[in-house]
């Protein structure tokens, strides 16, 4: 299938050149001493609180960077970003949980981290899992680590690390990964530089720590076009690219060849509110553009797919995430994020996870496209039935293509007649998703960690608490 493109080759070159200018002429707010020493040693200039990157260094770092990212789950399955397939994972870092049964919402806690991980473990289209909720019953300093610690026992799939911000946080995350395997193989970590073009000292320290540990790394700048990025999609893509490449450069200088996941989280500002629009189709456009830029460099690209601003599982939710997942998928995304997401990433819901699992099937079907070779065209079959039954139901050709997946079958979407639907209890898709989520949480068991592993994780968390939690 031809990839969907919104940018011409010239556009891509222009964005690349704009990025080089931003990095070389505008500079990046950067004050962390140790990393500045590394950068100036490689030819960067520092003036005031900004660092300026020579274009050769940018190009060189892109070239050096690892372009494939493999992550293995403790169950043994490895997923490789950049192998040409489209993978899905969930939103990470939601504050609230939406209860589709009651229509209410509440603050998420540790138990929700465990339950959401176990549910995602059962959903076949969630290929890797990111710790979902930021549990508010844990001190802020330990939140990211607690998310990872309490997700680990509840999946055997590849488990990505939580978003980190601090060097010590990174250190403890890597130690925890060691409990289930080689961190280079079982962990990926992501970090969000601040837009526009700023990296706090503790984040620069974390990048060094991640690179030293050899853990696959995703820089996740989150510019909002109009507020923390230019109002234009192209301008913000260029800025986002500069923000990503700057930290990639540091990572490559610390550890040449470190695998990079090129991530895009560019959203528009809702000009009447000042908030981020995750539901508008501009997100799909921005993501598609981001994919083109990342692929231009050869990186695997992760962008938002399942996303909405909606607060309930309604028509807005459905059409926003449908469009936002389909467009980047057709543009060739290596990984789509957002399973379970609601309210622009603030909230998540179990029913939404189940719904997205089904949407993911349709997205994969879209990506597969359809064949137009001689056999698929089936002129002989047409000729045969015209002389016979005058329909295609009894044809081998029909069954062959059905078995090959020409028609995507649904589990939750309704396709029956009114009468049948009524007889079966008049359920809507959301109600079926709620039931399915409940069923999975009731029935699905995950192979637990060894008692020794649990103990090791607790020891690491205790050490983290001692080092990170401020005395009150």
């Amino acid at each position: 299938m031809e990839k969907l493109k919104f940018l011409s080759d010239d556009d891509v070159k222009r964005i690349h050149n704009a990025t080089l200018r931003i990095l070389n002429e505008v500079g990046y707010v950067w004050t962390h001493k140790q990393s500045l020493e590394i950068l100036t040693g490689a030819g960067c200039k520092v003036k005031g609180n900004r660092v300026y990157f020579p274009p050769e260094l940018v190009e060189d770092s892109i070239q050096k960077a690892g372009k494939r990212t493999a992550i293995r789950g403790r169950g043994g399955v490895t997923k490789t970003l950049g192998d040409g397939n489209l993978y899905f994972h969930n939103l990470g870092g939601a504050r609230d949980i939406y209860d589709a049964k009651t229509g209410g919402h509440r603050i998420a806690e540790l138990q929700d981290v465990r339950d959401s991980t176990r549910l995602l473990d059962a959903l076949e289209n969630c290929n890797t899992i990111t710790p979902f909720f930021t549990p508010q019953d844990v001190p802020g300093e330990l939140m990211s680590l607690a998310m990872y610690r309490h997700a680990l026992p509840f999946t055997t799939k590849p488990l990505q690390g939580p978003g980190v911000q601090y060097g010590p946080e990174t250190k403890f995350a890597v130690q925890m990964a060691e409990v289930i395997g080689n961190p280079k193989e079982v962990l990926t970590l992501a970090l969000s530089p601040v837009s526009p073009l700023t990296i706090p000292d503790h984040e620069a320290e974390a990048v060094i720590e991640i690179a030293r540990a050899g853990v696959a790394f995703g820089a996740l700048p989150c510019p909002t076009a109009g507020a923390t990025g230019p109002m234009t999609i192209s301008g913000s893509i260029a800025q986002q690219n500069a923000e990503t490449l700057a930290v990639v450069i540091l990572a490559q200088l610390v550890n040449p060849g470190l695998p990079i996941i090129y991530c895009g989280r560019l959203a528009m500002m809702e000009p009447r509110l000042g908030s981020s629009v995750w539901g508008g189709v501009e997100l799909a456009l921005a993501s598609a553009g981001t994919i083109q830029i990342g692929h231009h460099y050869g990186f695997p690209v992760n962008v938002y797919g399942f996303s909405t601003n909606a607060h309930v599982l309604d028509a807005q939710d459905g059409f926003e995430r449908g469009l936002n997942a389909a467009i980047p998928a057709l543009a060739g995304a290596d990984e789509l994020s957002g399973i379970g997401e609601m309210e622009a990433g603030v909230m998540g819901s179990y029913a939404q996870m189940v719904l997205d699992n089904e949407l993911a099937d349709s997205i994969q079907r879209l990506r597969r496209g359809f064949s137009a070779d001689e056999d698929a065209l089936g002129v002989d079959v047409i000729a045969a039935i015209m002389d016979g039954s005058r329909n295609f139901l009894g044809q081998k050709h029909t069954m062959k293509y059905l078995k090959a997946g020409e028609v995507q079958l649904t589990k939750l979407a309704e396709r029956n007649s009114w009468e049948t639907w009524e007889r079966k209890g008049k359920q809507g898709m959301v109600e079926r998703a709620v039931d399915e989520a409940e069923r999975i949480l009731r029935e699905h068991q995950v192979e637990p960690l060894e008692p020794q592993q649990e103990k090791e994780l607790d020891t690491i968390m205790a050490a983290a608490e001692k080092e990170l939690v401020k005395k009150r």
Partner: protein
Amino acid sequence: MSEELYKEMAQSIIDGDSDISTELAKKSIELNMHPLDSITKGFVIGVNYIGDQFGKGEAFLPELVMAGEAMKAAVAVLEPELIKLGGAREMMGRVVLATVEGDIHEIGKTLVGTMLSASGFEVVDLGVDQPADKIIGKALEINADLIGMSALLTTTMVRQREVIEELDKEGLRPRIKVMVGGAPITRDWVTKIKADGYSEDAIGAVKIAKELVGKADQ
């Protein structure tokens, strides 16, 4: 004559045009108009209008920012004149603003500062990544009526509680009122940490600030 000029002043704010608002402020001085009248009968009318429009979802956030900047520019011209005349603009109250420790996001907080200034508050904005003792120290130093704290991250919003607990420990409340804001902040959170007020946007923040200093009607 001055009525016409007041209208132009208000319009310059609505248009977010700092050049014109500066020019009109200078012109009003040449015409011997009282700076306080220029502010309250002219420029502030524009700020209030655009604030109302924003509240109704009919103005864009960038328009609000530009209006705030145009207001600042006009006040910068008028304030020295006002002092020369031996007067001062009656202040609504003193506010210390900061983004809490560990967090360097400040667009919303800065906008709140701009709108509070435009509405007659004296604002000291400490910037980002501010620990509790710095925030409280500054509030004591300037004898602040209000502390405003922002946080963007769910991992840093907990710091807002620390500042409030510290204020309580020192017995500084209710003398100093606390308002909080930021993307993850909800009414539940505000109740939980016992803050005095919160708003989802800068216009609401001005309203809350006025209420907290007992000047809701102004």
